[in-house]
């Protein structure tokens, strides 16, 4: 998925000046557009976050209590226990995930093993499902009735073991993507020079490979850690009595209705993400271009033993990823796991388990559709205004910063912030609160940054003078936008739309605070059914999400190929 590659390989902050005067008509349009984007980001990210900070200093009755909530947080042994749990388990997961992902990415990029395309696909399996799915599958395999239970040698899957296993599955594809990008940007000439100087394989690895990917490694470590520490699906399903910060937010808010304390935990959850964000920013700033136009791409050489080991490793890891998915899928189509394995579709009759029935699936499709449509239009137009429209340097800086901000905000925190902001009695936008619109808004905002960076990357590849040329030819700039810019960026636009769609299908964290009974999405239905002990129904609904995401991704692949064929004429020399 090229969307994340954009994040992995591009600096977050870049500036480009262009100061041409604009026609009066254009000026108004640009002003409106830029103002609209800034307003959108302020309303959907900045102001809700401000409300979150504000609410953390009020108690549950709305009285100002200063830092009392924070003090209470530090004094509550259960919450401190959660911090310790979150930190240790996230660190452990990060270590395992990044190590596995590094090896996996290394096999994909630096060996000549067979089936690389297949393994690339396998690594993306977890992206298709909500994080609840691996946890459910683990319950089936290792839970009280699990067929592989004996492998745990008496330990329970409900708790740290299950959390770590589920989170590794959930975070794995993100780490693989970042590290694949980092490992594939290497200059073959360096390796040739090292070999000519008599450096052995190990020395080449330590002196060339590792330094080359160190920013990718750092980035992967932070991304995985942030994902895991803020994830709520896995510990919710399989955590048992092991509390984590993310589940605490849910409990404080949904269970205890203690919004002040919820806000405090939310702010604590914001810390690792902000830290990661700042570290990544500094890393990107210091990173110099390793790949110049004159670089020679690295071509892995055939090595019978190495390639076979790589194949073995990737088969093992890819098999485990596929295995979890198949386990959940299989369990969803049998009568009563593991005692009665007669095939049935009864588990897909969701009305049996959940009042919402199939309607939550329809809700998810609606949510995903509108998120993809609105998100793509807003993100691409916004990126274009920031990158290619003239003037308004201060406003552009603001929008750039606001567009990067969502990356640092975990979904749980965003959802919580939305409650505070949109549910506030003074907010004229309060009517949004119980509709589909707020789910769309939250999802667009939640996944804004990566989409924005994808659009920016595509726009930066266009000749800087297109707008200047069209101005000199007296053609309005929006005409060039529609006739040239959009067609040229269509692949990136499709990527963005698909990214929004799939994430809207699978996300739980932000929407879990915001749905109303009639807008409940499928991912939340999975959660509810699992909560109610209807694990088979939960697995079936999760499979519906997986199948939909996979189908959309396949459609996207076909569409991209068709598009490429149609536009090949101008890409080919």
């Amino acid at each position, binding site marked *: 998925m090229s969307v994340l590659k954009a994040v992995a390989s591009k600096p977050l902050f870049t500036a480009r000046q262009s100061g*041409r*005067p604009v026609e009066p008509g254009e000026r108004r349009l640009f002003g409106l557009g830029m103002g609209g984007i800034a307003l959108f980001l302020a309303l959907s990210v900045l102001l809700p976050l401000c409300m979150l900070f504000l609410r953390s200093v009020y108690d549950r009755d709305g009285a100002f209590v200063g830092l009392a909530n924070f003090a209470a947080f530090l004094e509550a042994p259960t919450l401190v226990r959660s911090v310790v749990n979150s930190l240790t388990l996230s660190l452990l997961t990060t270590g395992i995930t990044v190590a596995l992902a590094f090896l996996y990415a290394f096999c994909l990029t630096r060996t000549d093993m067979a089936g690389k395309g297949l393994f690339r696909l396998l690594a993306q399996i977890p992206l298709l499902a909500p994080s609840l799915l691996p946890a459910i599958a683990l319950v089936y395999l290792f839970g009280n009735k699990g067929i592989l239970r004996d492998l745990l040698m008496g330990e329970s899957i409900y708790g740290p073991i299950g959390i770590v296993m589920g989170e590794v599955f959930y975070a794995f594809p993100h780490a693989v993507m970042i590290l694949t990008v980092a490992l594939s940007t290497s200059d073959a000439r360096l390796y040739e020079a090292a070999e000519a100087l008599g450096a052995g394989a190990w020395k080449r690895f330590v002196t060339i490979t590792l330094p080359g990917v160190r920013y990718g490694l750092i980035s992967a470590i932070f991304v995985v850690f942030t994902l895991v520490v803020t994830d709520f699906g896995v510990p919710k399903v399989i955590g048992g009595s092991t509390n984590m910060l993310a589940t605490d937010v849910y409990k404080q808010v949904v269970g205890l209705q203690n919004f002040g304390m919820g806000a405090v935990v939310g702010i604590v959850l914001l810390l690792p993400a902000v830290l990661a964000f700042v570290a990544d920013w500094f890393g990107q700033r210091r990173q110099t271009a390793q790949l110049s136009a004159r670089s020679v791409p690295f071509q892995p050489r055939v090595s019978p033993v190495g390639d076979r080991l790589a194949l073995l490793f990737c088969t093992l890891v890819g098999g485990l990823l596929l295995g979890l998915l198949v386990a959940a899928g299989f369990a969803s189509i049998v009568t009563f796991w593991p005692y009665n394995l007669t095939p049935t579709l009864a588990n897909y009759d969701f009305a049996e388990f959940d009042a919402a029935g199939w309607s939550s699936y329809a809700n998810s499709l609606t949510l995903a559709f509108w998120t993809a449509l609105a998100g793509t239009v807003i993100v691409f137009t916004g990126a274009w205004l920031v990158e290619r429209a003239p003037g308004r340097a201060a406003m552009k800086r603001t929008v750039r910063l606001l567009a990067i901000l969502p990356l640092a905000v975990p979904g749980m925190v965003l959802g919580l912030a939305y409650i505070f902001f949109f549910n506030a009695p003074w907010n004229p936008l309060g009517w949004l609160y119980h509709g589909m619109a707020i789910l769309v808004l939250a999802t667009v905002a939640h996944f804004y940054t990566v989409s924005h960076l994808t659009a920016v990357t595509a726009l930066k590849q266009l000749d800087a*003078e297109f707008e200047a*040329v069209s101005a000199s030819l007296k053609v309005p700039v929006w005409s060039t936008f529609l006739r*040239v810019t959009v067609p040229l960026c269509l692949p990136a636009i499709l990527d963005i739309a698909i990214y929004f769609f799939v994430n809207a299908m699978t996300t739980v964290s932000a929407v879990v605070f915001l749905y109303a009974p009639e807008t409940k999405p499928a991912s939340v239905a999975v959660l509810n059914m699992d909560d109610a002990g209807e694990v088979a129904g939960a697995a079936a609904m999760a499979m519906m999400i997986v199948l939909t995401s996979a189908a959309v991704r396949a459609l996207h692949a076909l569409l991209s190929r068709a598009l490429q064929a149609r536009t090949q004429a101008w*890409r080919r020399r």
Partner: protein
Amino acid sequence: MTAAPHLRLESIVKTFGTFTALKGVSLDIRRGEFICFLGPSGCGKTTLLRVIAGLDPQSGGTVWLGDRDVSRLPPSARDYGIVFQSYALFPNLTVHRNVAYGLKLGRAAERERVNELLALVGLPDAGPKYPAQLSGGQQQRVALARALAPSPGLLLLDEPLSALDARVRLHLRRQIRELHRRLGITTIMVTHDQEEALTMADRIVVMNNGVIEQVGAPDEVYRRPASPFVADFVGAMNFLPGVLEAPGRVRLGEHNFECGGDHLSAAAPGAAVTVCLRPEDVQVRAAGGANTIDAVIESLEFLGPFHRARLAADGLGDSRVTADLSANLVRDLSLESGCRLAVTLPRERLRVFEAAR
């Protein structure tokens, strides 16, 4: 010149933050002229072009197009066509649609105009192709056709040839020059290539550090550089340190030389000066009379049609004189390293500048 200039720049200033890219540039350009802005990178030549185009508006000063003050007008309200170094052709549109991009004509008239322009740039059959299917030189000609399509009064070329290889560049130079002759359109070309400027321009504007060093016809700029910078930037040049003895007389080392310069009126006798002489102006065959000195060939470098000799002249101390000697001369006189010969530094070719302090 009686008519008002086609383009008049009055004290144009352009700052980027704390950096001043143009420090008060004034210039008149006549209708139909072919002007080259020449200078090293960072001298402000492209900035000046973008000021004229309205793409980077000036911080101060006025731009007149004919009798219109266009200083504050957006690009589309000015009247020019522009070609960029990158061509900026729209890759998803055919050549035909690229050229037609700025045309607002009926379908038939548009087709006719596009065909006319494609024929003009020598690509009559390129219409249905996409830019990526053309070579760099062909793409550049399409960009030229696109810029000329709406019949602008002014053509701006921003380093149009620098991305091309040498042979194509030579060909396109001639073609652009020919196009200019045929259409008579006022043209401004930015280049850092002095040979390009010398062969193409009616007048060259030599720029350095945000100011104009000299404006003049190519041979004038070449023969009578107005400053040491121009002397150095355009062509090869000997720089010899000396002292002004009296008007028309300079001392180099132990020798006195006559010089025909009228360009150093400001300096008083006794001032330190730099004497400039082109290597090809050093005379060997007709050596004799005033300004003649004896020299030893220190080294002789073969450069095809001529040899470049490094001469250690008697009484000039550590200074070395570079002289271009034709292959003919070297053969006839059997010149080689270590030979002694008499050379003349012709008085009318010596340019004298006040030495930089």
